[in-house]
């Protein structure tokens, strides 16, 4: 038997840990959300406009698509290490490292969302005399919401899931517990790990719900949100 009673016991202890230490876990979770949120904000702030504009003009597709492939291959530890040397330890260096990590998916999906907006609709709009900006605002963006949000969701989950490693560089959050087995025992480490998983799932669901409210009514029936990356990356 792989799992002996001792190992399962540790898992049970993890739940005890959660029950006994709600304050610590909550505050660490809060820190992690703060760090992740800031990173996501920066990533989206840069990648969304950039991707949308590139997609609208159908330029630099290689860059846009390559960004997420490159992002996947960039070891988070490397990013955190590199930025630590430049920006010191604390909040900022980790925020920047995580933001870099999160930019890829958003850039790619933003690009694709606008690039692939229904060609017919765009043509029709042009025929009606709409300017480029109007097309972007009234047609491409609304149509692209599902895809856009997919990218934001993926990026958010990636950032939240990677944030624990930032504890090594002073980033705080649940990672503080996970890398600190000596103080918190294995039960604490497992408890914090479970919390991270729950947090990722919660962030994912919250964004999914948000996406639902922002999707234009006409589009709501279609579910265009299987992650397009796997399809695109096939080719």
């Amino acid at each position: 038997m792989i799992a002996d009673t001792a190992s399962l016991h540790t898992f049970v202890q993890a739940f005890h840990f959660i029950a006994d230490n709600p304050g610590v876990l909550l505050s660490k979770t809060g820190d992690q959300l703060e760090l992740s949120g800031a990173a996501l904000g920066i990533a989206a702030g840069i990648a969304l406009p950039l991707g949308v504009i590139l997609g609208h003009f159908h330029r630099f597709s290689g860059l846009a698509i390559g960004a997420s492939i490159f992002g996947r291959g960039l070891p988070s530890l490397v990013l955190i290490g590199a930025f630590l040397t430049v920006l010191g330890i604390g909040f900022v260096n980790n925020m920047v490292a995580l933001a870099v990590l999160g930019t890829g998916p958003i850039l790619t999906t933003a690009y694709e969302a606008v690039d692939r907006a229904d060609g017919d609709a765009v043509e029709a709009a042009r025929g009606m005399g709409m300017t480029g900006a109007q097309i972007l605002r009234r047609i491409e963006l609304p149509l692209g919401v599902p895809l856009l949000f997919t990218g934001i969701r993926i990026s958010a989950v990636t950032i939240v899931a990677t944030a624990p490693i930032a504890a090594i560089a002073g980033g705080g959050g649940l990672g503080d517990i996970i890398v600190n087995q000596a103080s918190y025992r294995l039960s604490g480490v497992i408890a914090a790990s479970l919390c991270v998983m729950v947090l990722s799932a919660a962030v994912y669901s919250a964004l999914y719900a948000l996406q639902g409210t922002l999707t234009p009514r006409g589009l709501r029936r279609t579910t265009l949100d299987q992650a397009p990356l796997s399809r695109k990356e096939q080719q």
Partner: protein
Amino acid sequence: MIRKHTRRAAKAAFAISLGVAIVIGLFAAAFTHPAHAQTTKAPTIIVGTKNFPEEFVLGQLYKQALQAKGFKVSYKENIGSTELMTTALQSGKINFYPEYTGVIVQDVFHHANSPKTAGATFRLAARLEKAKGYSLLRPTPFYDTDVVAVTNATAKKYGLKSIGDLKKVGAFKLGGFPECKTRNTCFVGYTRQYGLTKASFLPLAGISAYAALDAGKVLAADVFSTDPPLGKNSKYTVLKDPKHVTGFQNVAPIAKTTLVKAYGKRFVATVNSVSRLLTLNAIVAMNKAVEVDKQSAAKVASAFLEANHLK
């Protein structure tokens, strides 16, 4: 459609790749499988180390010295701090590692106060460990205690000379490796013995305490007396510890008694021959080589052993 020979080539390539993948997987599984319970007479010597450079050097010294005398040694570096080492030792994952005598007395066995001399500390530690089935081999001449350091600027600002002076500061953060928080030779000792009721602890799990001091994240930090940054012309002031909270901390290798019995006098003599040579100058020089000159611990240990004819 698909041309015949290309189709065959694709098929063949696939079969080969799949075959290679499976073969690699099987080989790897066979080789990475730990050599469980080799039913040989003597147990394997498994040397472990804690998670900081001085321990890496010590571990490499003992490992290489033993290997030079023909012993078979398995090596597990960077396991963790004392608490994790104790767990590893008790679960049999390691059966030998270099530990500090005061840490044994005050942190492993939770005595609130340290004995009055280095010798007394060693003897007490040896007695305590023996009862649990572990032997303490001879201690090193050097000792490496925890010390509380502040930046020179901070020391000047508050007029800090000893740990007790920190009371003047009021509320402040003390940073250190995570286990410090619950140790008698560390945070618990500092706050209790010196009445630092307003101090709070900041665990530093992966970042150096000196970096935290420089960045102003903490006012004071728990560091080690043999650290290179505390050497000549240091940027930091070490606060005196008149109450000897941090105890006496010579290094004495802990070995499972059954291991010592199995390998006998030659094993003990080999280990002791290394320990005997570790003076403060020697360990500081080796620490500096690893931490400042960025040499590898293995090479440094090797050079030292060769220079002293132990290898």
